């Protein structure tokens, strides 16, 4: 990958520096790693800017590549069935999309179905194999009208087009998968993922875009579109999230305070803590991580991590959870 470097009136694409490649690879290694226990990675960095978005990008890209465009229909059905009635969803078919509200599971003539209300007075039912067309919508609130037609799906953007195969891209655009949540400063993280230009070089042509195209962050994609990640402010309420049946696969926190507040909210999710050396809560967070390290699961293998850039410390272990 490349990034656009602007110096005064000059602008040129430069290869992603080694440290940035490293953080992308941390996200990839974390999502690739399978274990029955909770994976914990804590990283001490000289500066935390862009670290969480890069790790999250690694998580999202690797996850798409691992699924190779296929989704387990039964697993998807069960996930939808566990969601509360009224959850905003979208139905995607043939590159077109429409919004709906989840009604929930039904059994009709011995056949398991999922109902989605797509108009004020109309519910559509989907068999297990068809439910892969239902995805969670980005918007928290969906208003249904008397009539609704399919409309074109938002394109993935140039950057993912260059980085993913056709099948992977189709899955990426058409389905929601809660790959990761980033806990930190919302304003800054949004700026980092939206305002900077990154690129992929295809022959002599640059496919240009921002990290938001890879992350498909919930609040940055339009209303009913599928999404892949979410940014949550460190100070947000953790109580509601605990009750939520939807769990991210990876939790990335980028402050010591974030770690203490959010590490037990999704105990099944992989945890990546980014701790800046200037963080006033660094020592508290380090002590917390170290105490978990001493009670880690000893008998497990760990994901392979690339050599660390200078100035970065990393610890990685499996923990039995809360």
């Amino acid at each position: 990958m490349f990034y656009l470097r602007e110096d005064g009136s000059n602008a040129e694409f430069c290869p992603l520096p080694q440290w940035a490649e490293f953080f992308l690879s941390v996200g990839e290694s974390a999502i690739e790693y399978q274990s029955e226990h909770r994976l914990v990675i804590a990283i001490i960095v000289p500066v935390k800017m862009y670290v969480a978005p890069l790790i999250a990008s690694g998580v999202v890209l690797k996850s798409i590549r691992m699924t190779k465009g296929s989704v387990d229909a039964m697993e998807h059905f069960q996930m939808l069935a566990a969601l509360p009635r009224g959850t905003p969803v979208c139905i995607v078919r043939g590159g077109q999309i429409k919004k709906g509200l989840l009604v929930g599971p039904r059994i009709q003539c011995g056949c398991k179905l999922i109902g989605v209300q797509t108009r004020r007075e109309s519910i559509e039912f989907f068999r297990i194999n068809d439910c892969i067309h239902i995805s969670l919508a980005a918007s928290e609130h969906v208003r249904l009208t008397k009539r609704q037609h399919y409309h074109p799906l938002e394109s993935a953007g140039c950057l993912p087009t260059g980085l993913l195969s056709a099948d992977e891209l189709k899955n990426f655009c058409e389905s929601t998968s809660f790959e990761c949540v980033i806990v930190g400063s919302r304003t800054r993280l949004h700026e980092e993922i939206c305002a900077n230009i990154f690129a992929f070089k295809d022959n002599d042509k640059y496919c240009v875009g921002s990290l938001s195209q890879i992350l498909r962050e919930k609040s940055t994609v339009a209303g009913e579109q599928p999404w892949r990640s979410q940014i949550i402010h460190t100070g947000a309420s953790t109580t509601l999230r605990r009750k939520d049946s939807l769990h991210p696969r990876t939790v990335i926190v980028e402050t010591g305070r974030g770690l203490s507040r959010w590490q037990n909210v999704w105990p099944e999710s992989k945890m990546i803590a980014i701790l800046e050396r200037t963080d006033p809560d660094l020592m508290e967070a380090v002590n917390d991580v170290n105490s978990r390290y001493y009670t880690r699961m000893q008998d497990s293998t760990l994901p392979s991590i690339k050599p660390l850039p200078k100035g970065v410390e990393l610890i990685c272990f499996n923990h039995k959870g809360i």
Partner: protein
Amino acid sequence: MIEFKDVDQLFQCAANCRIIYHPVSCQDISDYVRCLRQIKRLLGDAAASPFWGQFLARLRRYQFDLVSSALPFNHPSIIQEGMLKNCEQAQIKARQNYPHIRNSLATLTSVLSAVMESNSNPLLACILSLLREKPDSTTALLLKEGRHLCALREQLSSQVDLPSVLVVQTRSLLKSSCYSRLLVIGSADPRWYPDWVFGAPRTKEFHIVCFSVLKSRRKAEPYFPKSLTKPSVSSGSIPTNEIPDNSEESSEILEASEVLPQLDMENLASRCAQKHTGTPEMGAVPCRLFILADDSAVWLETSEHAHVYALLPGSETDYVEDTSTSIERRSVRDLKPGFFVFLRVGDNSDYVAQLADKVLGNRAEKARLVQNHWKLLLEQAARTEGFLEVSVKLLDLGADRANEQNVRNWISGRSIKPQNLVDFEAIMRLIGLEDSTRDYWAIMRTIMAAHLKAGRLISRQLMDLASSSSLSILYEKGTLDFELPQVSGVTLRAYRIDVISAQTNYIPLSNVERPFRVEEELWHA
């Protein structure tokens, strides 16, 4: 917004940074350090006595200023009044009771007198030569103490052949700017500067300028056990100032703990509490001691209801600069070192109540009478029967949260009313005003609403006053006065909180939120 290329630069600094040590020899300083150490050793336990403690404290402070400021030894901002007289008094005392230190004291006096007359500082000479060697505008000078900033800037600006040099404190290094060189006065020891100064460097080249008597090396320790770490700072290209193996010589090296102020917070809090407690009185409230930026301290109440105005500069670590700095009324329990607390200058009377009365208008007088009435009756009950007895009675009368501390809080003029109506009903039953409960409660809620409105007004006024220019002065100096335009005669001083004691002491209300000097206490050996 911080751009990707700027972050890249910061990572490059962390990857390629090196430390270059510039030990500076100075006979005067070595003599002074040796004499001071010898006297302390000869005094033994007596060094902690009030007389010798105070005597040594002044000398230690001067020692710290000599090695940390790079100012000429006779600069008025580091010379303390009456230092030589102090030595003469010590000599008189020694003649009577401590004959074994007489000679050492005489030597110290002559060394001190020689040092105080010197109008130079070899550290400054070393800094100037480094600046002249590579004159550029992106070199910065890092100082430990904010109170030396202005004086050193003046010294440097008087050098006509030099480009303007930035003199900064550690806080400035939280920003994303990178310097070509960072000249550090003092030591790389983590007790001098926080570990992140070197661990998250804002330069590729640190130059540690320090007296050779000072232990100056930094040993980087990983935070995680068995972490896959690479050291963030490579060793210096000129590894001088190695501590010699010879034990006699190495004992001459000054440890950071001998130079920096020693804070035994528990001891200090106990000593200050003894001074401020006086006779036990009804209005004593649980407090913690806060050490503030200008060598002063203050007792702040730590009850649940106790709030103060605080400036939270945390946003700087998020690189949003000062724009998102917030001033809010915060629970004292939530305050942390590095925050700024606003305290009234002159007295500690409640300025929020003053503005709340303005908000209440002509209802204020009656409302305050009612408030004082039930509080007075409750206080009388507590005086007669005791806090424990009153709290038990309140529980019997239906209170939810009655205990000794809460009864104290409810009596205190700093709280308006209990949080829950059931507690207030129990109080009213106890003091025989049960029939007026609804009326009194309504009035208390009116006062509460007026206080909240006044609080918001003050926050807004302070935010208006805290422009970016005034904030930069505040960050640098550690204190700054803000005059509230809507409350006549009220000036608030913002103080940076440096340390907070862990222990709680009961302090009379009259001594709470009243800063007092602890300058000498901080330098007690």
